[in-house]
């Protein structure tokens, strides 16, 4: 397997025990507070919050109408929400631009030019050395640069021929046929014996027997690349390859690419891949490549999973505000640990946007079991305390109204 950067896992797992939407308020300090609580309960409002420290953090990503941004921003930054969570506003991942791939290509081109210079100077050993170590070939193939690999093989063949190593030159040329590469145009600037060696070797390689490769991956769907030809199938799948050395790579969303160099031999070969979770940076680049251009697929499962990873957000809410004739249509999707856990949709007038955003959040967090729904009125302890107090007050008032002072009558002249 080629070198892969060490995987960056999600932030430490957080417990997903639901937080009660209406936390207990403790014992009431006064009758007035109790009565106000009762009124609050009867009005169906939820009040009170848990200590901030124990609240789960929920990341919010807002898309769509730019006018919707301030409402959410106010909700988050001014802590106006009564939901027992800590909200964090996030921005979409931006394209990373230069990937380093271009630099690698330039480096290889420089190596080829160096080899060519040594070849012209008849420094064949240095020519071979300039073309780099054995690992360069599979790395370049896995990156999909088949033409570059063909040129590397050509110059190796030329160097070996210059050194009089016919056998080695043939073996290298044979790889061209095994990998199914075309003879590059550079062959025109080389002596004819090099060209002949290339043709003979490629023919020998192409004539090799075929092996059936059975490719599987622990994470699907995974695109399979064979010898730099990308997307030849989706694992699990089977491929035919000529006997010899091959480079197979699998790519899956949210996972790091995995590469194996195999030696195909015999009628069948099992090739199993184990992938690692993508780093946030890789997830961001995958999201940018696959979803950034299409607003329709933004709230798809794959997009949300990548976003959650890219934003390091185990609890992610994607809010999409679409402008309508008389307000907005708010679509919310809640992703928990990279999986879509809840979806909801509401329409709202511009004035009630902030309130509706909170409603959407509440729906999502309840469906996603991050917060518990407020218990029914009769299930609340405070309600029964309030009822008890009211009953006592009513009883005392009735008794006071109905109570008659005992009468004692004195009789005299």
């Amino acid at each position: 397997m080629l070198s892969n950067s060490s995987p960056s896992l999600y932030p430490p797992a957080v417990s997903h025990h639901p937080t009660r939407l209406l936390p207990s308020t403790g014992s009431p300090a006064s009758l007035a507070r109790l009565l106000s609580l009762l009124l609050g309960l009867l009005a169906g409002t939820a009040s009170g919050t848990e200590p901030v420290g124990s609240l789960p953090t929920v990341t919010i990503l807002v898309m769509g109408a730019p006018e919707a941004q301030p409402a959410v921003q106010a909700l988050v930054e001014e802590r106006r929400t009564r939901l027992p969570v800590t909200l964090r506003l996030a921005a979409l991942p931006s394209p990373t631009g230069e990937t380093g791939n271009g630099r690698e290509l330039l480096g290889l081109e420089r190596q080829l030019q160096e080899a060519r210079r040594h070849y012209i100077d008849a420094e064949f050993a240095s020519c071979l050395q300039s073309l780099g170590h054995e690992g360069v070939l599979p790395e370049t193939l896995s990156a999909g640069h088949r033409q570059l690999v063909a040129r590397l093989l050509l110059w190796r063949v030329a160097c070996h021929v210059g050194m009089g190593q016919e056998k080695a030159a043939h073996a290298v040329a044979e790889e061209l046929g095994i990998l199914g590469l075309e003879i590059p145009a550079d062959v025109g600037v080389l002596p004819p014996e090099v060209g002949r060696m290339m043709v003979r070797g490629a023919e020998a390689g192409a004539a090799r027997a075929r092996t059936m490769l059975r490719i599987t991956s622990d994470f699907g769907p995974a695109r399979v690349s064979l010898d730099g030809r990308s997307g030849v199938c989706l694992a699990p799948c089977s491929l035919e390859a000529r006997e010899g050395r091959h480079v197979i790579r699998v790519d899956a969303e949210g996972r790091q690419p995995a590469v194996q160099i195999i030696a195909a031999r015999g009628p069948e070969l099992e090739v199993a891949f184990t992938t690692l979770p993508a780093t946030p940076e890789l997830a961001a680049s995958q999201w940018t490549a696959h979803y950034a251009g299409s607003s329709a697929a933004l709230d798809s499962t794959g997009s949300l999973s990548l976003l959650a990873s890219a934003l390091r957000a185990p609890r992610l809410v994607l809010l999409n505000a679409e402008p309508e004739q008389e307000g907005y249509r708010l679509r919310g999707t809640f992703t928990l640990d990279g999986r879509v856990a809840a979806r909801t949709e509401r329409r709202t007038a511009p004035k009630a946007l902030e309130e509706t955003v909170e409603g959407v959040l509440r729906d999502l967090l309840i469906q996603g079991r991050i917060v518990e729904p407020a218990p029914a009125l009769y299930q609340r302890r405070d309600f029964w305390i309030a009822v008890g107090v009211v009953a006592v007050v009513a009883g005392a008032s009735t008794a006071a109204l109905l109570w008659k002072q005992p009468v004692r009558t004195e009789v005299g002249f």
Partner: protein
Amino acid sequence: MRRLVLGALALALLAGCHEVRQVRLTFGEEGEGLDGFLCREDDGSYLLTGAVPPGGGPVPASLVIDFVRLGGLPGCRSGQLIRWCTDHDCAVMPEHRVCLPAPLPDITGLPRAEAREQIREALRSLSGATVASKAPEEFIIVRITATLQTCDALAASPTTVEPLKEEELVGCAYSCPALLDAIEGDVYLGFDTLTEQCAQGVRVCASGDLRWRP
């Protein structure tokens, strides 16, 4: 804690507190309820005349005030009361008997109006005297009997009510049936008779069970 204690104390005080009402016994503005003290014997002399000491002077009488339990609410007229008590347990309440010494004037030979005035004047001394600090909580009649028996003699047996001696009786008056705790105004005492020859009526009035005596 302190508030609780104070609250409980206030509640207890409130519960233990009684409204005190005053009910006054009266023989009427003109003494019109004193007919029972002006009864004459068959020979035409006042009942009081026979009790005048040999040397003259006020009659050494005692006023016995009784609450008579009726067990219900009969009519006020003497006939109605007597009929009621034939089939109800009408009885004097021993715990409420009160005796007050009340010397009565010698009214021998005085016209009835003058005799009434003198007796009224003599009984004025009772004004302010308390008969009961707590009236019974049931229908009763208040009866005042004037007797020559002394209060000391009557107090000899406080738990039982000795019948008053008929030969010692010199006057009687009674109220209509009333619930004293609910009554508004004064309680009027009188004597229901259409004739001055009412010594027999005094005996019926003074009897313990208000039974008719022919």
